[in-house]
């Protein structure tokens, strides 16, 4: 009897101790989010502050752009390489990777942008000239570059314009979101796009924080939106980045609440996870997020808390 009691006590202690080292999963609405780790180097969490990230799922690498330098992380979230650009020649704003593994960089020299192709070491290979751009999009100053299905998507968050080109930079389509959303012209610069992404079907996803809304714009120009203001779960305080998971759900950050909200393809709220705080798995100012091909979600944060990685699981 005493041995059994002792054994149970040991098990109970062991269980308690294991709980102290595990971050509990958040489970609602059939979607489970487990905090895994932060992107790190040998000094620990890399103290990025709201960086830009890109996931190269084919090669299981993560690119993080911060202060004109690019960190490359492996499948375990450890930095394996880093390169930087001289700010007097290039101010790098965004990056992505093409099918060949070359890095496409959106950079600025003064007020002029260009898209250049670099090798895996960040060395310049060639430039992609953006051509045949109609006059109404000629003043584009994109802050976001996405490559999807062989096309390039250049989004100017401030002027609310999107240009789509083929892989060689030739203009295909342009969208003036002020006209699409029927906003007043004088509100253009004070509205702006907050988060931007392109889903696997080529739908452009974006959020507008001052309108408390998220949008899905199809390639043929059909627009749908969701979201309403509020602090309750599923409502938007300050909506941030937007991404899709492998089920086609929409994941949206709320910068004010410090959460990630999950909506299904019909924009029904499923769940949210995260909380404002400084513990592992907490989120402070989550501005952007991306999914990789293995069900992991990467969320950028402020206060130099770097990039947190979660695993999503589904019932």
């Amino acid at each position: 009897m005493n041995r059994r009691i002792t054994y149970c006590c040991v098990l109970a202690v062991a269980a308690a101790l294991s709980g102290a080292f595990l971050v509990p999963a958040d489970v609602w609405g059939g979607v489970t989010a487990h905090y895994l780790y932060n992107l790190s180097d040998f000094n620990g969490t890399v103290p990025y502050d709201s960086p830009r990230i890109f996931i190269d799922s084919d090669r299981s690498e993560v690119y993080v752009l911060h202060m004109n330098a690019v960190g490359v992380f492996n499948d375990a979230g450890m930095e394996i390489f880093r390169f930087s650009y001289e700010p007097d020649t290039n101010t790098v704003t965004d990056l992505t990777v093409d099918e060949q593994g070359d890095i496409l960089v959106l950079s600025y020299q003064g007020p002029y942008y260009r898209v250049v192709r670099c090798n895996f070491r960040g060395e310049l290979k060639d430039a992609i000239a953006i051509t045949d751009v109609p006059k109404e999009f000629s003043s584009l100053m994109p802050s976001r570059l996405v490559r999807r299905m062989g096309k390039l998507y250049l989004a100017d968050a401030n002027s609310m314009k999107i240009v789509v080109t083929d892989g060689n930079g030739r203009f295909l389509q342009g969208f003036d979101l002020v006209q699409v959303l029927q906003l007043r012209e004088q509100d253009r610069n004070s509205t702006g796009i907050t988060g931007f992404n392109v889903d696997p079907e080529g739908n452009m996803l974006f959020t507008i924080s001052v309108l408390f809304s998220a949008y899905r714009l199809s390639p043929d120009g059909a627009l749908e939106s969701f979201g309403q203001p509020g602090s309750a779960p599923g409502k938007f305080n300050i909506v941030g980045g937007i991404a899709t998971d492998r089920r086609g759900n929409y994941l949206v950050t709320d910068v004010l609440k410090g959460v990630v909200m999950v909506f299904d393809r019909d924009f029904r709220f499923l769940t949210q996870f995260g909380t404002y705080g400084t513990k592992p798995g907490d989120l402070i100012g989550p501005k952007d997020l991306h999914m990789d091909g293995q069900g992991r979600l990467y969320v950028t944060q402020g206060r130099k808390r770097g990039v947190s990685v979660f695993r999503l699981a589904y019932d």
Partner: protein
Amino acid sequence: MKGMKASVAIVAAASLLIGLGGVAYAFHSGGVAECEGCHSMHNPMSGALLTKSDASSTCLNCHENPNDTGPSSYHVSTAEAKLGAGQAPLQRSPGGDFGWLKKSYTFTVRGTVNNEAGQTHGHNIIAKDYNYSVDTDFSQAPGGSFNSSSLSCISCHDQHSAWRRTDMSGTLVKPEIGKAVPPIANSGSYHSSADPISGSTAVGVFRLLAGKGWVADNVTFDVEPPHVVVNSSYNRTEATSQVRDAYGKGMGEWCATCHPDMHTNSGRLVHPVTQQFNDTVFTNYNAYVKSGDLTGDQTKSYSSLAPYEIGASDYAVLKTQASYTVKQQPGPASASEAVVMCLSCHRAHATGWPDGLRWMYQAEFMTYNGMYPGTDNGAPAQFARGRTAAEAQAAYYDRPVTDFANYQRMFCNKCHAKD
């Protein structure tokens, strides 16, 4: 669930057919508009039902955007991810970009290492989530007793904007128990802002600045907000034009709320504040073009690098002045319409130079050999001061170096013409 799906479908269909339409007002277009932008009724994270750790972080959720590639409307801070070595803050608002507080420079002059801390560049608001921290040089406001540990956006700005303007002559009122005042219909900050309608609606005061009765730490404002109007495209490069903040009156007295010993009214021997140009300064200002060049005239003498108040609160005049967008703009037509103020030399938020000054003042030359001095163009360290030439130009809001002399001395000379 079925009902929800149907209602979502209806919304979606309607949006496709009709278009979403709508007007995008920022959270405070003249006054408070969207409570949910800052407050959480049932899940707050800090006092006053805020959902962020401090007030300034709440503000910067919207007033800083990592997507920015250049000057952008109401943004007042550049994201830290874009402030690497050699990268200058992006915003060009008249108040300045708080990002300069994060730009520290180290350089050696005559064998002595100089460390110019970014915190010397302006007002050190405390915004933990955006890595803005307390000033470690000044525990209190220079010339005052306001505690630096309390400095935030809402030390100066009333996020709910109690004060409002009710007419074109500058009458300011605010709600009080037992009193009725017109509601705020829109912002009153811009040259294009709709005017108040007498007896019906008011407009917000400039930049939702706090006024009499506002308590900030151990200081209570005892003056009304200053009278200012700015061009609606106020946050832009000045490479080919100038942005005109039309300062009317009240700015010096307002700043003296926290910096009383810096004001002429303190009785201390300080640079004049809220003092009309004397005849010499008036003449100098209109004549001064650049070092050694006094061939200017009043029709094009205005410099946004050295603005002044007109000493009046006539909003028709202020809106006209603020509407100017060209490079050459008229200066004061008489000494009586030119009043020196704190912002004649400083910016309200931050600048690229120590003490929040609009120009570099700690060495002989602002320009050197016809260039903005930089660590990357061979300029002497005492003039480059650890910056690249591009950073120096950004600190002057992208003005061509030819706006200045080849060896331009301090811009104090715009009024004093000693060079």
